[in-house]
């Protein structure tokens, strides 16, 4: 039995009311589905005095096509997005990623906003208070050392959200609203490499909408996920790929990875050397080798880093094969 420590709950019915409460009550925390926040509160990794439940705010659910952009409401459930006709038609790699998050019940409870704002994860932190106390606390909460990087001064807990690398490959922007106003942040700039809190979002800011430009015709994309079981488990490695082609020749290629470091990463690729070539096995192998060279997983989650690293090129190749197969289907 894991009890929640006591806290208060506010149930605002508008974004303005929610952001006002968040501003007035430092230490308050927004909650959408609660599927990340509540386990973390049960483990006393997060201990807000006030939970600001977003479930009563209308108008933040659903997908619309608006001026060449798909606008996704932050409170849309993962399940709804995985089945949404617009998402499936235009952003199949996003449907693929959210459809593989957790299990069926959690996909109905969990939201895309909560997924983008997911807390980082580490084998030494996602444990009960008792367990963490027995080992000795760490930098992320209550302590001064890191158990992953001995002598490390920076937490390297893993960004573990499946949607993030896909949204990055799709050039998504995030709408952040607060009592101070609204700002639009490209997803690459939203994340930081500090595992204690890996986001540029202020505690009083709400993510209300995710906007994704419609991919150019002929774009292919896919997401592949390494995990021990085919359900429930968080990613041990997540790979999103995207390629834009004109007349069969590569114009742009993206590989974004998650679950390796504290932030999702856009792998730097030598685009000039790849442009203008067909997307064949040789090119895919070259991209896979480049991703392997760039990705150096840490011992932050239970699965061996050496194994996860070896899987990087395998999952890059699988993702491109999946994307190509979908395009020709």
């Amino acid at each position: 039995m894991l009890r929640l420590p006591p806290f208060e709950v506010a149930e605002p019915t508008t974004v303005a009311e929610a952001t006002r409460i968040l501003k007035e009550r430092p230490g308050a925390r927004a909650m959408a589905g609660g599927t990340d926040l509540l386990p973390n509160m049960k483990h006393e990794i997060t201990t807000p005095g006030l939970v600001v439940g977003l479930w009563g705010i209308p108008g933040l659910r659903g997908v619309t096509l608006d001026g060449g952009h798909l606008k996704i409401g932050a409170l849309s459930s993962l399940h709804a997005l995985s089945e949404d006709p617009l998402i499936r038609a235009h952003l199949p790699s996003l449907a693929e990623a959210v459809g593989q998050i957790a299990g069926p019940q959690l996909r109905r409870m969990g939201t895309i906003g909560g997924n983008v704002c997911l807390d980082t994860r580490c084998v030494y932190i996602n444990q009960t208070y008792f367990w963490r106390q027995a080992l000795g606390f760490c930098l992320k909460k209550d302590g001064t050392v890191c158990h992953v990087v001995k002598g490390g001064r920076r937490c390297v807990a893993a960004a573990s959200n499946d949607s993030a690398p896909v949204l990055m490959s799709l050039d998504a922007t995030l709408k952040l609203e607060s009592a101070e106003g609204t700002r639009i942040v490209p997803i690459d700039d939203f994340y930081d490499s500090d595992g204690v809190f890996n986001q540029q979002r202020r505690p009083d800011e709400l993510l209300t909408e995710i906007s994704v430009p419609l991919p150019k015709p002929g774009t292919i994309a896919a997401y592949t996920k390494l995990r021990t079981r085919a359900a429930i488990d968080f990613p041990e490695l997540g790979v999103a790929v995207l390629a834009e082609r004109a007349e069969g020749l590569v114009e742009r290629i993206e590989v974004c990875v998650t679950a390796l470091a504290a932030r999702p990463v856009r792998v730097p690729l030598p685009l000039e050397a790849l442009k203008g070539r067909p997307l064949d096995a040789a090119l895919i192998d070259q991209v896979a080798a480049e991703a392997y060279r760039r990705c150096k997983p840490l011992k932050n989650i239970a699965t061996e880093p050496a194994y996860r690293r070896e899987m990087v090129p395998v999952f890059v190749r699988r993702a491109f094969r999946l994307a190509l197969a979908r395009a020709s289907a």
Partner: protein
Amino acid sequence: MKQLVAFEINGDPVEVAAPVHHTLLEVLRYGLGLTGSKQGCDKGDCGACTVLVDGQPVLSCLTLAVAARGKQVVTIEGLAKNGRLDPVQDAFDRCGALQCGFCQSGMMISARALLNEHPCPTREQTKLALSGNLCRCTGYTKIFEAVDAAALQEADPKA
């Protein structure tokens, strides 16, 4: 701090004074005495606490009781109607789809949700629908067979 929370439980209206930091599972088990929903991991991993909220299978261990306000909640206690087992319960019994039984209330709720949406599920649909419910005893095969049997019985009650 407590709040009055009114919702519908297995077809009946209830109003409970729930501490706001209590989960729906705690209110069901310790407030209403409905101990059919199991407290397994209490953190979203196992599915033993699965209930239907407005027809959707969700985990009651990660649902705040106050968030159930105004909703229709169905637990394993609400599946049987007028003294007759739900076809899912009957099929799980006939097929021997349980051993220790700890996972069963959550498993049958997920199965019920599946059949409500897909009366004739494929084996793939069944596996996916039950993939958030862990069973440490059965090896799942008899559970899948029970879902098929329940689907068959609902399609043709005389069969």
